[in-house]
């Protein structure tokens, strides 16, 4: 069918182009003008429509209208006069051309009936529609034939007295002569066959639902208007004095108006089938523009016509006055009409940008809310006039959520991912438009929607991420403050412990020594020989006191830790501990220095753990291992003692160790069970670069220290 349409179009359009070329060559200016304003617009609209929507049946009919109109014009106005001049009016070739011209004319009517009467589906849906179409098609073929065989001359309509040639039929049969009048009349009525189409359209409008009525309304008004112009035009051609200038002027104006109105009606109809528009607002805007131009043209033509008509019967001055008055009045009428058109067409003004704006506004909602999704889906569906649309979004937390607007039927006509820099955040799926398949413009707009949604959703994700991070930071800050408080409390407790050790221990020893000194002094004053023994005792006790002070200082911070390093300090500790203590360590860690903070922390944890072992574990042996892997310092203190129940609430001591380790980003793991010993595992990040630097500079430093020691 499509191929047939294409062939028809090529024939009709070809004829028109040929006629145009001939007219240009022969210099027939008026004919060129007629072709340009008459059939050509129909051809052009039909061609564009066919290229955009080759499957649209309304477009097929329109192509038929254009092709037939073009062929009729070419044959009737250009080729028939040529044939007549060439072969004479009696020639059978001339008669054939005339017959073809007639067929083109009747075909034009059939196509017009199809286009108008079967709008918008473009195919007969009811019985009477089929009857009308087939009847008109049969008449289109038969009437010119019957006319030719019944009459001596082929009845060519047109403007009487405008040089339409009288062509001899050549195939007329005398027997049919009595029917001649009927057939000729039938043929002559053909320009009005289209009325059947208008009637069919009116019936459809009458029977149709609101949605169909909206589509039909404009076409119905347009073609009715057009016919209300054609009828007086034909009456004028047939009845008025063809020689009168007024007749010509009025005829010209009327025909121009009639054609323009018909064109506007068809264009409007095509817009409503979605051939040109991408969305309702765009369609409305175009209809609006066309309406305004039509109104302006009509008012101007009316004013000029009024002036010209007056000039036929009145003096020139009066004509001018009438013309000017008409023009002035016309402006007022034009304003009114335009205002009415604005209200009528753009009741709710919406443009493509408005759609994008509304879509964007819908995005200002928290992600993942069903409200957002249904709003987006609704905007997409309404904006593109789709049968259904589904929007799915990856909420910042949780699974993909999707909301569908409308009822999905079959496979989606388009699927557009909502993607931000390669990350899929969701997608838009949609069905076809409610008036046909998706157009390229629709897909582009969908892509815009998706891009806009992607940026919006990405921003929402960022915002959600940000507030989550802030929450985390807040939590960390609270934990840090609590940990810091515990560290401070731990330090205070440690200070008091040291104070007690000094006060109750060393200080008392010194006080006692002081008393002994007093005693010895008295003995010496008396010359008592016991003084020497007392002094010897004091000397021994002084040595003990000195040792005690050393131990205290060592416990606070062993000099070997700051002078030699962690491994050396651990090894030194093994000789001081009351328990057998084994040290397992990578020999490469010998002499390796970590940050002071790290070493002191590790030492603190070690001495606390060892003191716990001595006090509570009842262990026979303890093993300490030191390692460094993956930028982490590992310290494990394992004993074979009685162990303890891990589920028991932690004492202040273990929490204190954790807090202390927190200050260097370290972690503490304790494994224990009653009767199975305890292992305390500590990990402290030390950083590879740090170790590397230490290892590079290590030997030098160690050498330096050794020299100092020596």
């Amino acid at each position, binding site marked *: 069918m499509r191929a047939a349409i294409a062939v028809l179009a090529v024939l009709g359009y070809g004829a028109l182009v040929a006629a145009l070329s001939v007219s240009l060559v022969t210099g027939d200016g008026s004919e060129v003008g007629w072709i340009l304003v008459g059939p050509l617009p129909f051809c052009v609209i039909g061609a564009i429509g066919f290229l955009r929507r080759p499957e649209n049946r309304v477009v097929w009919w329109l192509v038929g209208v254009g092709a037939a109109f073009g062929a009729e014009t070419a044959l009737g106005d250009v080729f028939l006069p040529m044939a007549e001049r060439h072969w004479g009016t009696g020639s059978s070739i001339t008669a054939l051309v005339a017959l073809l011209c007639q067929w083109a004319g009747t075909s034009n009517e059939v196509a017009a009936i199809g286009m108008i009467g079967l709008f918008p589906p473009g195919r007969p849906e009811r019985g009477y529609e089929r009857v009308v179409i087939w009847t008109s098609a049969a008449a289109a073929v038969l009437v010119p034939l019957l006319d030719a065989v019944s009459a001596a001359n082929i009845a060519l309509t047109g403007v009487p007295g405008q040089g339409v040639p009288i062509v001899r039929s050549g195939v007329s049969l005398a027997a049919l002569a009595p029917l001649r009048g009927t057939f000729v009349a039938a043929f002559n009525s053909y320009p009005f066959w289209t009325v059947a189409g208008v009637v069919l359209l009116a019936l459809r409008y009458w029977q149709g639902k609101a949605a169909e009525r909206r589509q039909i309304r404009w076409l119905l008004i347009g073609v009715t208007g057009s016919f209300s112009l054609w009828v007086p035009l034909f009456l004028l051609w047939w009845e008025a004095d063809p020689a009168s200038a007024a007749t010509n002027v009025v005829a010209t104006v009327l025909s121009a108006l009639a054609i323009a109105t018909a064109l506007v009606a068809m264009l409007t109809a095509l817009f409503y089938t979605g051939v040109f528009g991408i969305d309702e607002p765009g369609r409305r805007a175009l209809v609006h523009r066309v309406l305004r131009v039509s109104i302006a043209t009509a008012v101007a033509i009316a004013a000029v016509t009024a002036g010209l008509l007056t000039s036929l019967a009145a003096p020139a001055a009066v004509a001018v006055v009438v013309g000017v008055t008409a023009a002035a009045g016309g402006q007022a009428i034009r304003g009114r009409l335009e205002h009415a058109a604005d209200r009528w067409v753009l009741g709710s003004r919406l443009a493509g940008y408005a759609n994008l704006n509304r879509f964007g506004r819908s995005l200002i909602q928290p992600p993942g809310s069903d409200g957002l999704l249904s709003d987006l889906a609704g905007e997409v569906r309404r904006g593109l006039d789709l049968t259904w649309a589904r929007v799915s979004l990856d909420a910042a937390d949780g699974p993909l959520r999707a909301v569908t607007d409308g009822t999905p039927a079959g496979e989606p006509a388009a699927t557009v991912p909502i993607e931000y820099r390669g990350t899929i955040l969701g997608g838009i799926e949609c069905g076809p438009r409610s008036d046909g398949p998706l157009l390229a413009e629709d897909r582009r707009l969908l892509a815009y929607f998706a891009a806009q949604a992607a940026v919006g959703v990405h921003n929402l994700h960022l915002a959600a991420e940000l507030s989550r991070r802030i929450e985390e930071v807040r939590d960390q800050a609270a934990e840090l403050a609590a940990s810091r408080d515990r560290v401070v409390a731990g330090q205070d407790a440690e200070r008091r412990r040291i104070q007690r050790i000094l006060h109750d221990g060393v200080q008392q020893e010194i*006080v*006692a020594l*002081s*008393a*002994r000194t*007093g*005693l010895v002094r*008295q003995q010496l004053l008396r010359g008592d020989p016991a003084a020497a023994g007392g002094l010897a005792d004091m000397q021994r006790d002084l040595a003990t006191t000195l040792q005690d002070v050393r131990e205290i200082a060592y416990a606070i911070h062993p000099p070997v830790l700051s002078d030699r390093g962690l491994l050396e300090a651990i090894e030194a500790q093994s000789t001081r501990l009351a328990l057998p203590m084994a040290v397992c360590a990578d020999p490469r860690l010998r002499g390796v220095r970590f940050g002071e903070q790290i070493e002191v922390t590790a030492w603190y944890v070690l001495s606390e753990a060892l003191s716990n072992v001595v006090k509570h574990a009842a262990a026979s042996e303890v093993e300490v291992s030191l390692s460094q892997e993956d930028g982490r310092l590992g310290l494990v203190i394992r004993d074979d003692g009685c162990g303890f129940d891990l589920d028991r609430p932690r004492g202040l001591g273990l929490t204190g160790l954790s807090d202390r380790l927190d200050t260097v980003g370290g972690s503490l793991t304790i494994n224990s069970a009653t009767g199975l010993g305890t292992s305390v595992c500590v990990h402290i990040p030390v950083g590879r670069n740090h170790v590397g630097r230490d290892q590079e500079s290590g030997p030098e430093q160690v050498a330096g220290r050794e020299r100092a020691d020596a």
Partner: protein
Amino acid sequence: MPEPLRIVMADDNYLVREGARRLLEDSGDVVVAAAVGSAPELLDAVERLRPAAVLTDIRMPASQRGPEGRPSMEGIEAAHAIRSAYPRTGVVVLSQYADESYAFELFRDGTAGLAYLLKDRIGEVGRLLEALREVSAGGSLIDPQVVEALVRGRARVRASALRDLTPRELDVLREMAQGRGNAGIAAQLHLSESSVEKYVNAIFTKLSLTTEDLSHRRVTAVLTFLRDAGLRG
């Protein structure tokens, strides 16, 4: 040779207790009737033995009183208990703390029969004996180091009346604050007793204090003045 003083000693540290006991007994001026390690034991011994004087450490944590980690003052509390139950028994409190607040806590209800000495004095047997005799006679004594700290601290305060005192008057004030009577001050500073009396009157006038005959009330007045002088400043 006067009668040796019967005393009771208390210190939670065995070494200190034994060292001091041997030192005092070696002097021959003192008989240590009992040496104990805690405040309850001390009160028990005083009740049984009724000594003329008591020598006690300020802090005896063995009694397990006072919150953990805070300096406890079992010795001071025992001193107050002894002084109120047995007014004829004087108490010398030995302290590690030079802070005046401990001394003022001891002299909360008066200075009679009480002495506050730093533990540093334990080797100076003469000073110990002096304090024991003083308190057994109902007098009082404060370690000169504490007085010195008080006077030095207060005299620095710009508005303090102590700035009006001459150096000699300040010396006399120090001695007064330590609990010495006019005769003691005269001996200590190598002055005549009448000169001391003149200085004392001058000091009391300059500091707007009322003259007191009883030395222990005089000590209270001076100490109270010294304590509050800083605040007035």
